[in-house]
């Protein structure tokens, strides 16, 4: 449990820097990239970044729910692959809208299975880790089985491609979906029973249980929601790249966790928000894009990325400490 030796007065300026530390790092990256490469700050490029992060951002939003509840989901990548191939395979058979619904259903079922298994095994971080690890292996190979290892092409389905490639005005549809999803997630977390209990699960599930709350039901629901967001991400991704590959989700779960944690949501649960996750998602998206645009080689990009993540969290770490003090002071 946090710092106990608190105190020492802080200047106001100090407070602001600390509270919004990660935003300052983000701003710094944007400014530096803007100066080095004028192309970075163009409207087109900003839209590009948003497009690039939308689909994977959905996973991060789902992961936010899971992490707040004190769990983790390592199977998201595999669920993404599975939903993707199922969706694209189904389109010629049942049409786009129904295929998407089926894909979402697959995501929901996988998520719910995760939730049920995790609840059966005690609902701890450890059980979430190992169950979703097993599920990742199993579901990943299910996706491979479905397509026999090959890619499935969706180039011929114009209406499906519209989701990922079309735009309303200048705003790409995927970005709209992502923004809506973030707002919805934030709303659910802040305003609904499910959201509130999600935090409680991550803080102390025994006390929550003894408050007469169906802890198990809600824990399953958390993973169901994560599965749904993953499936949405899968549809967006497949439609953007107009094909589905049975391994396309590999490693995305770690990216999602990274974005959530970088945003400032604590591993172990009990705090965090969808809005914070968006910052994490953008941070990764902007960083990659900026380095690409500046022409940094792929290898060196990794070095720079590692260092910048560390700096960002270092600044944010301070902000968490300060936030605690501030929260204690709010009236």
């Amino acid at each position: 449990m946090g710092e106990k030796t608190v105190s020492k007065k802080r200047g106001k300026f100090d407070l602001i820097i600390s509270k919004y530390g990660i935003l300052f790092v983000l701003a710094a990256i944007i400014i530096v990239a803007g100066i080095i490469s004028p192309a970075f700050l163009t409207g087109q490029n900003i839209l590009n970044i948003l497009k690039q992060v939308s689909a994977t951002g959905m996973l991060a939003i789902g992961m936010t729910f899971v992490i707040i509840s004190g769990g983790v989901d390592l199977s998201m990548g595999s669920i993404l692959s599975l939903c993707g191939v199922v969706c694209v395979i189904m389109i010629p058979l049942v049409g786009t809208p129904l295929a998407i619904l089926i894909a979402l259903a697959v995501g929901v079922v996988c998520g719910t299975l995760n939730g049920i298994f995790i609840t059966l095994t005690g609902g701890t971080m450890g059980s979430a880790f190992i169950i979703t690890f097993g599920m990742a292996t199993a579901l990943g190979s299910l996706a491979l089985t479905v397509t026999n290892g090959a890619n499935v092409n969706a180039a011929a389905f114009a209406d499906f491609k519209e989701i990922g490639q079309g735009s309303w005005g200048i705003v790409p549809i995927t970005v709209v979906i992502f923004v809506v999803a973030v707002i919805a997630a934030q709303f659910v977390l802040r305003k609904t029973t499910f959201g509130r209990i999600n935090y409680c699960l991550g803080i102390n599930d025994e006390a929550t249980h003894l408050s007469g709350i169906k802890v198990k039901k809600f824990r399953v629901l958390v993973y169901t929601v994560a599965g749904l967001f993953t499936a949405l991400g899968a549809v967006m991704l497949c439609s953007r790249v107009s094909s589905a590959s049975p391994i396309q989700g590999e490693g995305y779960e770690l990216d999602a966790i990274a974005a959530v944690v970088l945003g400032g949501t604590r591993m172990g649960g009990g705090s965090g928000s969808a809005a914070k996750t968006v910052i994490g998602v953008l941070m990764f998206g902007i960083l990659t894009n900026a380095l690409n645009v500046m022409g940094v080689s792929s290898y060196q990009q990794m070095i720079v990325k590692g260092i910048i993540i560390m700096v960002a969290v270092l600044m944010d770490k301070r902000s968490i400490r300060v936030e605690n003090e501030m929260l204690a002071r709010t009236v």
Partner: protein
Amino acid sequence: MKHISKSFPGVMALDDVTFSVGEGEVHALVGENGAGKSTLMKIINGVYSADQGEIYISGKKVSIKNPLDAQRNGVSIIFQEFNLVDTLSVAENIFIGRLGGKKKMIDWKSIYKEAEKLLKSLNYDLDPRAAVETLSVAQMQMTEIAKAMSFDAKIIIMDEPSAVLTDNELKKLFDIVEDLKKRGITVIYISHRLEEIFQICDKVTVLRDGKIIDTGNVEDLNKEQIIEMMVGRKLDQEFPKREKKIGDVILRAKGLRRGDRVQDVSFELRRGEILGFAGLVGAGRTETMRLLFGADQMTAGSIELNGKQVHIKSPMEAKGEGIALLPEDRKKQGLLLELPITENISLVKLKKVMSKGNLINKKKEKDVAKGYFDSLKIKAPSVTQRVYFLSGGNQQKVVIAKWLFSDADIFILDEPTRGIDVGAKYEIYMLMNELVAQGKSIILISSEMNEIIAMSDRIMVMHDGKICAELNGEEITPENVLKHAIN
């Protein structure tokens, strides 16, 4: 300690406190919840550093920056909140950080032997190999006490060591304190049970709102005076009177059983009644109540509510049937420490703080919390303060508020006044009276003899998982209760 000040965000916990304790005396420190007692002790022990002030031990100025410094200066402490590593054994917790002394390798045999010796010297029967997570709260407390004793300390601080102990252990504790006194060791004793102070302490210091009110010899003071100093006003009586209006049976438990912890427990609870459950630590009272509340599943027995048989399999269903349980371990079972007071209270009945469309209404939530905040006199900078930062007693009040909010008909209160100051206790008793006056019923588990005797209409005494006596009216005397509890 001279001129100690300490502030937390929004609170001035200690305000220029100067406090001295003579060598070899047992010095009581009393005050309302949130008065700053624990904070002061944590400063002596190096957990917090004071904003201002100095500490002198045996006339020498010392700098205590962390608990290790305190140990080196011969100060050891029993924290108010448990300070044990759950996953480790009793022996290891006692010698934590000092295992094996200077040697790198550990000689487990000698450690267990030493722990056993120590526990024996405390006249307490506890397996030093047991993991702490398997212990009852009282056993944990005794482990804490053993831990504090294991240092070669000159000053031992006990922050509410008795709150979770029953008479049996309490006696042992008193023996320990007597023994320490004989050996010339200084004890600082914090307690809300004022009788204890008269039993074992030489001097008493009263703290209120972070300031020292007075220090005096225990012999020169009486309970009323101390209470007056603590609360700042006179409290004519400790237990408020009430008119009894006992109605029909509302709850009937028949033959409850779970393993050998609860064996064939049957009792009835009437409308408007306060039913006391007395017994020694580990008598099975908590376990019985967990069955009623659906927190554990019974292996046999049945429960009738208003004459109808009910099957309660989870706290959720119990809540639906109008049963509330105030658990004995507030930190682990009662509170979400990282959430604010508001959210802790509203959790049991989120529906009541929702506006149209089933959305949580923060304002309503705040208003509700504010109500309890005022009526229970919870001391905190605001209702949105996180419970983590509250003093122990105030945390307890939040748990009470939470269950009051649930609108239950039957309140099971497991040690409700644990760690609560006299003033607040009085408020809680008033509240209980008010509840029964409304026709609600209360099951009160308490290890504090006075409280259970004064408050209960009827008392069930448990021993070893069985009900061994039911005391009514005139039969309710301390001697009777004790006799049956010890069996």
